[in-house]
């Protein structure tokens, strides 16, 4: 690959005296499935927040497609091809399932305020197009039948999957998944792994995921980066990571952290 899709160059973020992520360098290539793991509080979600523009790094640079994203607002970054899900599910609770997807699709809509007000035939056909497209996405995740349910009334696992669909609807080049398997049972997890691989291939996107479930991470990731206390301690293939003494120390040394049932 000539140019990485995403490039973090010594990205650092400090909150007051606390350095949440320090000198984090990482490259993500197009169509790659990369995992970001580490004990709780290691700075994984913070790294996501830097990549998506929610936080601005204190030091260092982040480049998307060779362009710096410093100062770019989250919604503009989404336009440039980054989409994400949230650790603590953030759906549009009062919207229906399909409207959650639709809201995310307005980014690429060719019809805006004027068409909505005029409501000509073009508006109608474009709205139908949006609906078909949203339903297609929902069907991949078996959510099509729930299209008119209120998003906040869905069971937990469906909400997590709807978040992925919503993120996909923005047509990303890089999809960030923040603990997509959290709260799912083993069967659902198995299904999810297949789905993640499927969408990566179908839509030709890079996927970066934060996950605590090692079966999921080791099972689908091509490459893994490990954070501990905001510092990257290892990077490599799943096999390399499993053997890495530093990683073993980080996890076994703080065994109680690893399987902590509650995530903030």
């Amino acid at each position, binding site marked *: 690959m000539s140019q990485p899709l995403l490039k973090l160059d010594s990205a650092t973020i400090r909150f007051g005296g606390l350095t949440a992520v320090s000198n984090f360098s990482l490259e993500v290539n197009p169509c790659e499935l990369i995992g970001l793991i580490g004990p709780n509080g290691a700075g994984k*979600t913070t790294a996501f*927040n830097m990549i998506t523009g*929610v936080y601005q790094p204190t030091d260092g640079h982040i480049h998307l497609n060779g362009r710096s994203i410093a100062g770019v607002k989250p919604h503009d970054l989404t336009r440039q091809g980054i989409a994400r899900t*949230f650790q603590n599910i953030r759906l549009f609770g009062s919207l229906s399932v399909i409207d959650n997807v639709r809201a995310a699709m307005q980014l690429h809509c060719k019809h805006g305020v004027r068409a909505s007000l005029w409501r000509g035939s073009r508006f109608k056909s474009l709205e139908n197009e949006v609906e078909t497209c949203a339903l297609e996405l929902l069907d991949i995740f078996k959510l099509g039948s729930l299209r008119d349910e209120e998003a906040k009334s869905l069971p937990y696992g469906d909400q997590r999957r709807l978040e992925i669909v919503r993120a996909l609807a923005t047509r990303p080049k890089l999809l960030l998944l923040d603990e997509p398997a959290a709260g799912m049972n083993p069967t659902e997890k198995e299904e999810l792994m297949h789905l993640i691989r499927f969408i990566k291939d179908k839509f030709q996107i890079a996927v970066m995921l934060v996950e605590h479930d090692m079966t999921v991470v080791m099972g689908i990731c091509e490459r893994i980066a490990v954070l501990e206390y905001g510092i990257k301690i290892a990077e490599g293939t799943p096999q390399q990571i499993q053997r890495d003494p530093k990683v073993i120390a980080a996890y076994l040394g703080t065994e109680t952290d690893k399987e902590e049932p509650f995530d903030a």
Partner: protein
Amino acid sequence: MDWLLQQLINGLALGSIYALIALGYTMVYGVLRFINFAHADVLMLGAYAAYFLAPAVSTVFPLPSLTGALIVTLLSVMICTGIGILIEFLAYRPLRQRPRLTVLITAIGVSLLIEFTCQHEAVFGADTKPFPQLLPVHDFNIGGLVIGSNDLVVVVTTLVLLAALWFIVQRTKMGTAMRAVSFNQQAAALMGININRIISFTFGLGSALAAIAGILYALKAPGIDPLMGVQPGLRAFIAAVLGGIGNLPGAALGGLLLGLLETFAGGISGLSNYRDGIAFAILILILLFKPAGLLGKASVEKV
């Protein structure tokens, strides 16, 4: 120069009253996170309580006198404390778990209810009533500056109350509990703090301050009427937000700033008619640069 100093003194006196009222807004906001619009009306009720109590008290302690004034104030404070606790119990407690917007609208409703009920002929009537002289009045003349005894009383009372409030919040068990409830209600409840008691206490305390502020305000005003709380209430409420709502020193600072500003603007011809507008304009300007007020801490939403 004299004019400046004179305005400074007047401004401090007015600002002290605003500060007292603002403290009530801010304390309630601190524990319950909503703006208690009815606070301004408790202030009005405090003044009316004093108005009706004064003739009765004067039969035992002739007015104006310091003892008489103290007794009248103490009694109105007790009445208003009760009213404040009652308002919380009847109107706000049932809404404890509801969205804050609901509570905010209810607070506006309570405020309107008190105002319109009091304006009714059978209650106080809408007309302005002369407020009795509670304290002997004397103007001190210091090198060309005139300091009214009422102004002195206002400033000194505020300072004493501020100190007392600081002590209660920072140094007593009740205050620690208040701060805990303000920080995290659920966690405080789990630590064995009786939330309802703390909230009642906060309302009582805020209403007591409002009663004192009402009497002090009435002493300086030409008379009292059921809507007398609206203007000072609005300014105090601006003051509380200006200083960073939920922040006690912020409320005091905001009150003083606003009082000074108003007296100085009022002293300049042409500006005086715009006083309310200017207060709000300054508030908006400050919020644009410091969205959480002067001393408030900006909260960062966790993503």
